[in-house]
């Protein structure tokens, strides 16, 4: 019978389809986390979760929960406080003796020793391990042997690292670097347990650290369950019983889940929702500056931008940008107009200054026009802004900046936008020094130090000096600041060097980027640190 045959066909097809799709399916995980567990939005980390290989916020979030280093930045003030370090001593700002506190261990009960640090740092520096953060170890003597510019490394360890006893090790730096101990709060300097080296892939599937949380389960691309480690020896024990990180395809979706009660914490409120956020969350919305600044860097390798007198054109362009209007209209105050080249998250004590850029960062179209015209006008009569446009409303603000410049100069549409599709492509053009007009450069500091906002970006030949700015006076002041052992004096020196940026304007400070977060009613004590990462261990669940 024909009909019967057909029905059989259909039944078979459905059965095959169901069988093919019936994988998965155990726990369907209800709404928010369980009792005392915070559920929080997450993005898929870009690289494997190794301390020295993680250079973005999503992976950093996890490391902040499962690792504690020699120092830790106070989430409120940004001050680097001793964590595992008992003391870090030096007499010459170049050779340091580090002594560890008693009683620290990894969550697998292995004690944290000087060797745990030395092994981890050597691993991070070794070019064979392809760690993104390897350059953080480049100040240490012997780095080149482990990380040659080309060819195979000749050593397995850095000679500048010497273990004295289980609790003490010494570090020899290549140059004087008085604020070097302050950098040790960065996660790349975390200690690693032996299991990391003996069973590497196993460790990556379920990382083991020495922080207040342990990893309960990790499904790549989906989420991670972290639970409070009862045996944690530190003082900053977790105030909740755990954190469930859930990967979201889109921060809009995460926000929707927060509003409908399926999620406790969103640490990136999407731009489209900013007009509702006050209504939806009231004072459960956090919006504060992070250690991130966006600038427009000039290609000073291009003679038409760097020749004598062009600094006035560069300053003029800066004055033609209406930062207040753009941060209000486009970013709805999740950006703060920039007034220097650092970030308010540093604090006044840390070197932030609201007056340093001065008039050059104030919107003054008349003065801008005069300054540019007196200096001979824009090179070729026009200026083109470049950025990737795949994220971050870059297209919108570039259009707004161009409008602002065009209106100020009043010579028609002299400013145009060159949108680049992907971040990778933008990076390629930027690092090949192919751009001929000002381009966006975002900078997220690794540690709350003024040095980190200046040296890597503007020192002659520095790694992220994409505009190839070079000024002997600036270099000299940075060197002096690094040698200065008195912190306040060092910061004053750095600010002096920053004044050269204000005069030369190799890059225009646009705005500081804020961290934003929203949370459910059952949470309290939610705060963001300077890296705009929630301080998870302090969150209380009611």
């Amino acid at each position, binding site marked *: 019978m024909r009909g019967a045959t057909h029905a059989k066909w259909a039944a078979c097809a459905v059965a095959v389809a169901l069988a093919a*799709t019936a994988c998965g399916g155990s726990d369907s995980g209800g709404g928010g986390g369980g009792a005392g567990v915070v559920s929080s939005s997450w993005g898929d980390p870009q690289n494997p979760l190794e301390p020295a290989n993680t250079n973005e916020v999503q992976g950093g979030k996890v490391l902040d929960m499962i690792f504690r280093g020699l120092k830790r930045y106070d989430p409120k003030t940004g001050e680097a406080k001793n964590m595992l370090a008992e003391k870090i001593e030096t007499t010459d700002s170049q050779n340091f003796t580090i002594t560890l506190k008693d009683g620290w261990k990894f969550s697998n009960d292995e004690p944290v020793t000087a060797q745990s640090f030395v092994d981890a740092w050597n691993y991070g520096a070794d*070019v064979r391990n392809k760690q993104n953060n390897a350059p953080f170890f480049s100040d240490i003597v012997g780095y080149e042997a482990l990380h040659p510019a080309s060819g195979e490394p000749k050593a397995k360890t850095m000679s500048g690292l010497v273990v004295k006893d289980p609790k003490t090790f010494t570090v020899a730096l290549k140059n004087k670097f008085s604020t070097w101990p302050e950098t040790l709060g960065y996660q790349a300097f975390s200690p690693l347990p032996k299991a990391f080296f003996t069973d590497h892939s196993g460790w990556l599937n379920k990382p083991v650290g020495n922080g207040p949380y342990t990893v309960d389960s990790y499904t790549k*691309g989906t989420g991670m369950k972290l639970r409070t480690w009862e045996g944690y020896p530190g003082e900053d024990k977790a105030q909740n019983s755990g954190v469930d990180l859930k990967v979201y395809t*889109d921060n809009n979706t995460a926000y*929707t889940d927060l509003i409908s009660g*399926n999620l406790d914490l969103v640490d990136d409120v999407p731009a489209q929702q900013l007009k509702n956020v006050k209504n939806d969350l009231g004072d459960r919305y956090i919006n504060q500056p992070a250690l991130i600044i966006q600038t427009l860097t000039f290609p000073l390798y291009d003679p038409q931008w760097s020749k004598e007198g062009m600094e006035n054109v560069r300053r003029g362009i800066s004055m033609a940008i209406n930062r207040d209007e753009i941060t209000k209209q486009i970013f709805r105050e999740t950006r703060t107009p920039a007034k220097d080249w650092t970030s308010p998250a540093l604090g006044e004590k840390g070197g932030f200054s609201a007056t340093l850029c001065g008039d050059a960062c104030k919107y003054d179209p008349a003065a801008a026009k005069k300054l540019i015209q007196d200096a001979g006008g824009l090179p070729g009569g026009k200026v083109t802004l470049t950025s990737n446009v795949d994220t971050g409303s870059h297209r919108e603000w570039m259009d707004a900046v161009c409008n602002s410049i065009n209106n100020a100069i009043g010579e028609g549409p002299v400013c145009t936008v060159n949108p680049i599709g992907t971040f990778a492509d933008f990076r390629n053009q930027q690092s090949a020094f192919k751009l001929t007009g000002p381009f966006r450069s975002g900078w997220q500091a690794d540690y709350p130090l003024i040095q980190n906002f200046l040296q890597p970006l503007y020192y002659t030949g520095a790694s992220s000096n994409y505009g190839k700015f070079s000024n002997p006076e600036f270099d000299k002041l940075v060197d002096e600041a690094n040698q200065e052992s008195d912190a306040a004096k060092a910061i004053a020196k750095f600010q002096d060097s920053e004044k050269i940026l204000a005069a030369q304007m190799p890059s225009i400070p646009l705005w500081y980027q804020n961290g934003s977060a929203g949370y459910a009613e059952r949470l309290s004590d939610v705060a963001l640190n300077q890296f705009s990462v929630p301080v998870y261990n302090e969150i209380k669940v009611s």
Partner: protein
Amino acid sequence: MGRYVIRRLLQMIPVFIGSTFLIFFMVYALGDPVAALFGDKAPDPATAARIRKDLYLDRPLWEQYLHYMGQIFQGDFGTAFNGQPVTELMASAFPVTLRLTIVAIFFEIVIGITLGVVSGLRRGKSVDTSVLVLTLVVISVPTFVTGYLLQYLFGVQWGWVRPTVSPDAPFNELILPGIVLALVSLAYVTRLSRTSIAENVKADYVRTAVAKGLPRRRVVTRHLLRNSLIPVVTFIGTDIGALMGGAIVTERIFNIHGVGYQLYQGILRNNSPTVVGFVTILVIVFLLANLLVDLLYAVLDPRIRYA
């Protein structure tokens, strides 16, 4: 029939090689992905060189392609940048999207054909007009609008369903996303089957069947519908591939970790192994769906026979 299938399968080989070749070159032409791995920081040259070497990126393009194809035939689709093998990503993504596609196709067939038959049999009546207006509205509204709207209404405002899909993505949570994904195609299916039915309802064999005194139900299902379904089946067949690859918007809205999401991530991070691997599988799905459609013609219309 058997020989026909074999011939068709053999024809797939050049199509497969040609399309992977094109995709590979297009993705790799986007440029060097390694620089983006370092975020805002400048890539360390020595580290970047090592990564390039590992990913075979330091070779000429044709060599990279040969190497890649060689790997694929051994079942190795390379590794995503986060250290996960692409096959692992596929194993987690394809079942989810397949389920989503099944839900979508189900609604297309059930709702789309029913509406099409109803309006086709009552051509010019008020039912017909309202279905046409309704499908016009559905076609003209973009998926992301209907997606966010339905998610807001059903998920947030009324709380009937969870607004997002859990990682396991079981069928019951995929009903709303499935409808959103299906909507536009559903409207086309409705219109196609309506037109087809309206044409065939005047055909001689239908008149004969009615004259024989067959019950109306039987005339419609056995005679009219079967002959009218050929264009609809063609459309649904090609739609399987389109739905699987085109679920990017829907998957983003409902937090479904399927093929669309992985493709989106892959493109955003310039992660060529992911993109090429997933698109390669989609090409195969597309080819097989087309073959299935051709075979179904013979089932629907006995006059079509393949030698």
